[in-house]
């Protein structure tokens, strides 16, 4: 599987590394050239020597998406630090490039919920944290 991950922060880089380890082809796009350092943290080899691809460019630039291989992508992960950026590029990946699997990180639960109702596959870390915190508090109270 060819996976394109846009945004190489804590989340994007961790997903990229584990997908690469599982034997997938992984391409990462980030506007910051320094983001490569996160990909290579605790690794003996350079990201590209491990077989990964890295492109510097902003997510809304079609040329950058093409260079990062969006036309070949089987899966697209939108994980930049901007909810709106993620929601827009995910729709571009889906509607313009017909990427079969598109996953979007959205921090705001309200936007995540509405866009998931519209058919986007959204992941909302905030909603997950809210659930887990509630569960943890309840468990403590019972115990």
């Amino acid at each position, binding site marked *: 599987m060819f996976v394109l991950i846009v945004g190489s922060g804590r989340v994007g880089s961790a997903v990229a590394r584990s997908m690469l380890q599982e034997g997938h082809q992984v391409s990462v796009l980030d506007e910051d050239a320094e983001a490569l350092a996160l990909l290579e943290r605790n690794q003996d080899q350079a990201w590209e020597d491990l077989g990964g691809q890295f492109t510097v460019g902003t997510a809304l*630039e079609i040329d950058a998406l093409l260079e990062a291989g969006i036309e070949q992508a089987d899966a697209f992960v939108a994980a930049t630090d*901007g909810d*709106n950026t993620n929601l*827009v590029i995910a729709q571009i990946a889906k*509607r313009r490039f017909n990427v079969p699997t598109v996953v979007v990180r959205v921090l705001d639960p309200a*936007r995540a919920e509405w866009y998931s109702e519209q058919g986007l596959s959204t992941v909302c870390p905030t909603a997950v944290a809210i659930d887990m915190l509630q569960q943890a508090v309840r468990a403590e109270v019972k115990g």
Partner: protein
Amino acid sequence: MYIVVVGAGKVGWNLARELIGKGNEVTVIESEPSRFAMVEEELEHAVHYGDGSELWVLERAGVGRADMVIAVTGDDEDNILICQVAREKYGVERVIARCNNPRNLQHFELLGIKPAVSATDLILRLIEHEVPRYGFLHLLDLPQERLEIIEIEVAEGSPAAGTMVKDLGLPDGSLAIAILRHGAGFVPLHDSVIEAGDEVLIVLDTGLEAKITERFQPPAEAA
């Protein structure tokens, strides 16, 4: 009309002031605290503090009863999202988006956000109109009728040289009406052959200049 304007930068603030002056009810949303404070001094309760791409902020501003939402922040992804949500979630019939980077116009188009207004693009088109890249003269402008007549010179090496008028590939909305050659002019037929050194008069709908000049531009200059 009730109009929600997202973004109180220069564009949003002036827009809000004009719209209020014309008797509309307006709410402006601004997320930057110092900018908000500055605008609030003038517009008072007509400006709300918050991130206009947050649904609850839009709801607090009464997006549900808005006749129009205008997104003029400095971020294209925010403007796209605000207009998309306003139209599709809250059923706002009319949206207008500002497009900061003309390269992003294609994204507005893809997601059906229109009209998208790009100042850069407008100015570029005006420049093309005033100072065309490939030499032509405006002979007549009828701005109200949106028609104009231009005169364009056929250079040596132009793809138009040696071509019949019907094979020029002029876009719909334009017509070659005269050819000036060796100090005389004639009205061309569809099989008249254009020669290098000719001057061709074309009547066209305003805005077609670029499409027409590319038919006359020698290949070397096209790059």
